[in-house]
């Protein structure tokens, strides 16, 4: 049987990837517990927060070990969650020993994000469709497509510079509002509000909201509160971005009057 320290490291590492890619708390906890169980460790304690993992195994034996892991909120990657789910299922079925599991875990970690161009195009197409289902016309959807494309470029650029998410949200929603106002002002027959509503969708805290509800529902109040706060702050940042541009616009002389 392998060393308990190695098994614990493996389990926590797997939990780390899961948590980083946006898994719920109970899923992370369950996965770690199941893996420890599958490798024959039955004296353990695991506590998972939305940005940290604390775990210990075999506390009162000779090979006692514990791990504390800080996991910053990362980018959502649902593919990694699905892959890890499969991996933990195989570990639990004892189809996979420790070395094999490490290899599989490295493969899961190496799953790439989409290429920037693909991300931009998809963001644009998504924005266009949202604009159109929320009541925009074809012309509005077309501009939402362009704005979505540039929005994703802006976000990727800022992320590379290491800007905080809140800053990106404010800048992003301000950019959207400003460009839609420009479109309105050069006299195009566009529904300015529909364009903004459609292209604002990628900034919305849908994931944070869903995760926080599920965490709260599962009794992980602290983690749920962290995500809920994240969702509320994001919504507020969007409102600030939109609002600032509106105020500036209102004080500009000679603008087209808003409806």
């Amino acid at each position, binding site marked *: 049987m392998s060393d308990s320290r190695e098994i614990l490291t493996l389990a926590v590492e797997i939990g780390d990837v899961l948590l980083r890619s946006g898994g719920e708390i109970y899923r992370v906890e369950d996965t770690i517990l199941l893996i420890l169980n599958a490798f024959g460790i039955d004296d353990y304690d695991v506590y998972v927060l939305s940005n940290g993992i604390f775990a210990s195994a075999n506390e009162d034996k000779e090979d006692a070990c514990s791990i504390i892991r800080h996991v910053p909120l990362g980018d959502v990657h649902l593919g990694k969650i699905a892959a890890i789910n499969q991996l933990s299922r195989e570990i639990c079925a004892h189809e996979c020993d420790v070395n094999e599991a490490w290899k599989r875990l490295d493969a899961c970690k190496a799953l790439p994000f989409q290429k920037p161009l693909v991300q931009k195009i998809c963001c644009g197409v998504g924005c266009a469709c949202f604009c159109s289902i929320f009541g925009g016309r074809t012309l509005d959807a077309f501009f939402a497509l362009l704005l979505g494309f540039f929005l994703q470029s802006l976000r990727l650029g800022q992320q590379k510079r290491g800007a905080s998410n809140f800053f990106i949200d404010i800048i992003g929603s301000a950019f959207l509002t400003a460009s839609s106002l420009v479109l309105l002002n050069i006299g195009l027959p566009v529904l300015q*509000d529909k364009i903004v509503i459609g292209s604002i969708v990628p900034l919305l805290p849908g994931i944070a909201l869903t995760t926080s509800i599920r965490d709260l529902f599962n009794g992980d109040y602290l983690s749920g509160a962290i995500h809920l706060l994240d969702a509320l702050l994001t919504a507020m940042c969007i409102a600030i971005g939109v609002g600032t541009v509106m105020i500036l616009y209102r004080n500009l002389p000679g603008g087209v009057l808003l409806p």
Partner: protein
Amino acid sequence: MILQFLLAMIATSSFAVLFCVPKDQFLFSSLTGALGWISYLIFCRLGCGVVTASLLATFFLTIISRFFAALCKNPVTLYLVTGIFTLVPGAGIYYASYYFIMDNMASFAEKGTETFKIAGAITIGIIFGFSIPQKLFSCRFPAKPENKN
């Protein structure tokens, strides 16, 4: 209605790409989003208010995503997270801040409360959806022997 369905499907699947959903699950996650949106429209047309429609649509969406999750043996997050984007009240946030800036306090209060109500309705919808025992979903699709836990 069909156009709306298709558009919602494309919208959800392009977001699924952004969140790196595995390629073989695109169809299911986009279906989830589209069904959620269509059910929202139907409930709206049946005369439910926006808030009630959000609640019912989220409930329905959660059930569908759990169904797909059981069917494909994948985490439910895959479908729920991408599908929920059609229901999150982005328009509410926009209009609320717009009316606030325009000093139209009556409309601001109205839109603001409505946004909060929708967010609450989504919460309750998800909670209701998850209160249904897992057995109902998994018993229909007995675990394949090679995937047994």
